[in-house]
């Protein structure tokens, strides 16, 4: 992005700044998570730790709020006068929503976080200087900062063998977050390229989706109308882009929503409401 490039293609960059996101998408990876069949077992979170070289920070640091769980299963209880405790907690697996108009992207001073043509919100660890503005500007609070150097503590000598070689181990002072298992996406793309065929639904499966025992997490490309995730999004009347019209809520089967949709950040994760029988 030299000065000459900026001056010559000013309208292009201007348009980018206004609309946010990327404009020549090749894919738009997205998820659909059915909270009705989610059991809150935390297998997705565990799988994420194993896949993405996430450090286990220990009890004190966890309590200090410095945990590194890219995918956390949040628990919410009803108000006490409600149905508590018969129905238990509501679970919601919360990870980076890979927003189409991500609030974290424009505020990074060194452009360490940016939008890829895959519709992902990528984080370049090597470029990050740790100003942590991105995390402050994330409504979902799903960006995790390496407050300490975990390499020595989290993986003592033999355990280092378990690290995933497909991605790096981050050192202190770097921001990181869920990448939709970008290393798996890369591998799948390379494989399809070698086999000279287009990427099809099911080629890529994220670690969390793979580990989910009830198949609550569906991952795919919303630009492929035949993919499972596209069908789920269409079925529940969730569309890309800013919130425009009110959804038709007549049908009880339509349970889809995106978290903080009203902020117009265009999240890539659709959740399906949990259906509860209040008559119990």
């Amino acid at each position, binding site marked *: 992005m*030299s000065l000459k490039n900026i001056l010559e293609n000013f309208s292009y960059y201007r348009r980018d*700044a206004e609309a946010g996101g990327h404009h020549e998408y090749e894919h738009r990876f997205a998820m659909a998570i059915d909270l009705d069949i989610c059991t809150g077992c935390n297998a997705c979170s565990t799988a994420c730790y194993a896949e993405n070289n996430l450090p286990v920070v220990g009890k004190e640091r966890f309590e200090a709020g410095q945990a590194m769980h890219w995918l956390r299963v949040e628990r919410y209880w009803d108000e006490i006068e409600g149905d508590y405790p018969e129905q238990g907690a509501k679970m919601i697996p919360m990870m980076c929503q890979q927003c189409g108009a991500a609030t974290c992207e424009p505020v990074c001073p060194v452009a360490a976080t940016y939008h890829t043509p895959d519709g992902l919100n990528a984080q370049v660890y090597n470029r990050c*200087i740790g100003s942590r*503005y991105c*995390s402050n500007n994330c*409504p979902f*609070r799903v960006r995790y*900062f390496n407050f*300490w150097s975990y390499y020595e503590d989290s993986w003592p000598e033999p355990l280092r063998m378990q690290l995933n070689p497909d991605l790096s181990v981050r050192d*202190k002072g770097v921001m990181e977050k869920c990448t939709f298992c970008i290393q798996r996406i890369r591998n799948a793309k390379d494989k399809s390229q070698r086999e000279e065929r287009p990427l099809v639904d099911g080629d890529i499966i994220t670690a969390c989706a793979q580990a989910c025992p009830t198949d609550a997490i569906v991952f795919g490309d919303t630009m492929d109308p035949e993919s499972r995730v596209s069908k789920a999004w269409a079925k529940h009347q969730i569309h890309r882009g800013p919130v425009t019209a009110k959804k038709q809520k007549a049908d009880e089967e339509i349970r889809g929503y995106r978290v903080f949709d009203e902020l117009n950040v265009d999240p890539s994760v659709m959740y399906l409401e949990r259906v509860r029988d209040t008559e119990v």
Partner: protein
Amino acid sequence: MSQVIQDKVIDEKLEWSRINADVIASMQSPRRAYWVALAVCIAMLFCAVAAEIYQYKYGMGSAGLNNPHMWDMYIATFVFWIGMSHAGTLLSAILHIIHAQWRKPIYRFAEAMTTFSLMTAGIFPMIHLGRVWNLYWVLPYVSDRGIWPNFRSPLVWDAFAISTYLSSSALFLFIGMIPDMAILRDHTTGWRKKFYGILCLGWRGDDRQWRNFRRTYMLLACFLIPLAISVHSIVSSDFAMSIMPGWHITTFPPYFVAGALYSGCAAIMTLFVALRYFFRMEEYMTLNIMEKTCKLTFAIAMVWTYLNLIEFAATWYGHNIYDKELLIDKATGPYAAVFWTMIFCGMVVPFTLCFQKLRRHMPSMLVVSILLNLGMYVERWMIVAPTLAMSHQPHQWDVLWGTVIQWAIVFGSFGWFGLLFLIFVKLFPCVSMYEVKELCFHLKHEIEEEEHEKQHAAKAKAGATAGGGASPAGNPGLEGA
């Protein structure tokens, strides 16, 4: 007594040689209190350096930061010090342009305060970086890989704004001191003579030099005013450009500028009392000047209060659920004590400045100015912390009070500022000699003129009564003028 004599900020009969002698005496032979203050400042700075070394080695976690609280006191302190820096520009540039004469004896140390508080503020964004060794990536240097900083980020604007402001205000401070450097060159011996000889840039005080000097000074003053306002507007963009409740507020730029001038004026009052007492500058830093400073502070305090109330009202009537909940939480939640301290110190305490007895009582002014600044510090922290503690995502709500490391660095920043200031007052004149002389000169002439006028008026009146209405009645000054 006429208005000029009643309001006169300095005794116009001060001899020029005495002004020189008094100011030079303040720069020499430090007393014991000075060495004690210096030692305290160095000790405070040492605490901060030790804490920073620890934090550098082990990571930002040692500052107690966590997931919702990615920023905390470091950024609040940064905003606080940037705010302090605005008073110097107000006194030296804005009041210079509107010809407020009373600024002359006190603007020099206010301007030094500007430069040093910017030097303190500039440290905070650096030490709060996770990888401070890559700091230069924020600057648009030419890279062979064609990588630029993200020009959309307010943090990049910060880097530009602060470095521009720092260099221009340091230049302004230096240019304003040139005639004084020449006086010092003529009145000192040894290394000081050499030192000031270099710094006065061959000043001889001839006509051409004065004319060039005035022009340069005016030009820099005009340049500095929009710069100062833009700097704090940009600092406010760090918050206002985000999406967070309590940060995403349109009135933030003027609100921050008002707050900056407010805390800067309060700091000037503190330093005024201290310098007046320690350097026995009663003749230069007179009570009349203090009065005027107090009135200015009060006016700015009211502007700040108004903007603050507007912000609350806009939040209240805006019915944005996140913003509104945050406001209620600030006033009643875990941060309530801090919030009400801010309201008390920032909005109630300034009303003490309405009383002349208090304005002319230095010990109470010291207490009041420190309370005002406490309120302003707390205000900055109330902007940064509660938003992070209670933002959109309820799962990540958390209240944080900082660790020893964080407190030590914040505490030490005051030591660093104090150290710079203490070195300054012994190396450079904290009262502008040539401008105090100018002030005396003008005042003398004004008073003479007034007396002259009065004599004429009296004469005319006497003539009128004797001559039986030779001049129109009720307009006796006409002839005198």
